[in-house]
């Protein structure tokens, strides 16, 4: 009878051994069982080597990072033309812009509240920039204007969604963009203490999540339910909030 090597046991462990009788032979032999058990125990420890988990929206984050870097080649000219045509009727949106504005708004708020660093006495500070100039940034106004622009995009996408029976190819992509921006604006609003605006943006999130992840793969019934939900008041609330934010003096 052939000697059973550790390589045989490794193949058995991974379910790759060609001899189906080997498992029985190992089970019947005390010596082989002990060797196999030792191998199992040692390899089982390797299972502790687990990567950090990514969030549920990691795939969307990856897409956000790579989508602008995906080049197109000539063989895809038809698709490229279609995409260009579609872009004419799609809402314009800039995640990078949203991120910058949200960060600037949060920074402006922090400087305004804390007085900011005394850069007038800082030899490293850029010439011509004063503390007062930094503090003078009206963070409330900046955030409100940014969110108003964001809500205009939301309004367009939701209106398109409730008036079409089929999911367009770019619908979920825009929803993902808006979801990321919405979170940034909500966090900026929370940082500014604008709880009403933050709560409104938080109310929008579940729908944007559903639009981003379920609209395309969901059933017709799901789409109808979401459309009804939007018609029943969410769209109206978006428009009202947008109007409020566009007023010269805003207190939300």
């Amino acid at each position, binding site marked *: 009878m052939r000697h059973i090597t550790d390589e045989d046991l490794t193949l058995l462990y991974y379910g790759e051994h060609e001899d189906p009788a080997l498992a029985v032979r190992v089970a019947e032999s005390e010596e082989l069982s002990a060797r196999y058990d030792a191998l199992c125990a040692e390899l089982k420890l390797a299972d502790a080597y687990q990567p950090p988990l990514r969030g549920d929206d990691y795939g969307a984050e990856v897409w956000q990072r790579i989508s602008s870097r995906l080049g197109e*080649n000539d063989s895809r000219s038809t698709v490229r033309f279609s995409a260009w045509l579609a872009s004419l009727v799609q809402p314009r949106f800039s995640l990078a812009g949203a991120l910058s504005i949200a960060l600037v708004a949060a920074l402006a708020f922090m400087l305004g509240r804390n007085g900011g660093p005394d850069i007038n006495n800082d030899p490293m500070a850029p010439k011509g920039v004063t503390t007062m100039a930094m503090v003078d940034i009206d963070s409330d106004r900046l955030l409100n204007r940014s969110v108003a622009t964001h809500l205009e995009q939301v309004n367009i996408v939701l209106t398109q969604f409730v008036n079409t029976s089929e999911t367009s190819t770019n619908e979920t992509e825009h929803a993902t963009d808006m979801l990321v921006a919405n979170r940034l604006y909500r966090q900026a609003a929370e940082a500014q203490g604008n709880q009403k605006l933050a709560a409104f943006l938080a109310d929008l999130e579940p729908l944007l999540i559903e639009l981003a992840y379920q609209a395309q793969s969901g059933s017709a019934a799901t789409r109808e339910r979401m459309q009804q939900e939007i018609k029943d008041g969410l769209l109206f609330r978006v428009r009202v909030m947008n109007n409020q934010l566009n007023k010269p003096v805003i207190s939300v």
Partner: protein
Amino acid sequence: MHHPANLSRHPSVYTSEMTQTEQKIIRKAAKGDRAAFRQLVLEHSHAMFRLAWRLSGDESIAEDIVQEAFIKAWRKIGEFRMDASFKSWLHRITVNTAMDYLRKHVRRKQFETAEPEWETNEHAAALPDTDTQIDISRQTQAAMMDLSEAERTALLLKHYEGHSIEEVAHIMEITTGACKQNIFRAVKKMRVALRPLVAT
């Protein structure tokens, strides 16, 4: 004893067969449909991150590798053959991207001194709850990084990703015989490194 006939830790979840829906999406992506490719990104990002992280041992490097691998996949998706496994194809690109990246950017010393990332990662779900588990994870990572590139890649694809030896060989572009030898050597080294921890 762990009954050898019970091989349920490698269930059929690892099957390489693609559904018709996935084939349809891949065909659309191959024609340049970005929305279709986006679906593939959403579907495979987590798995690619896991593989990239185990190959690199570093969270931010793994994220870079995933992004680069997807960009390469987009450029090459027209070359994908439908009779192959898309997951294996993506893993092949990820492995090649990781190897290129690591050869260019990473010194091996980083792995030896790196702290396990779950110690600082707020998203980590399976946080070790004892010092022993931390030690095991650290020891495993160190042992893994002591393997040669080929040994480590073969073991990762076999042990953690559940590919068949034939698939691993295909991904690594080596013969099944060479693939087996890499796995055997890797297992042997890992066992030596982990054996002292079995009793703890």
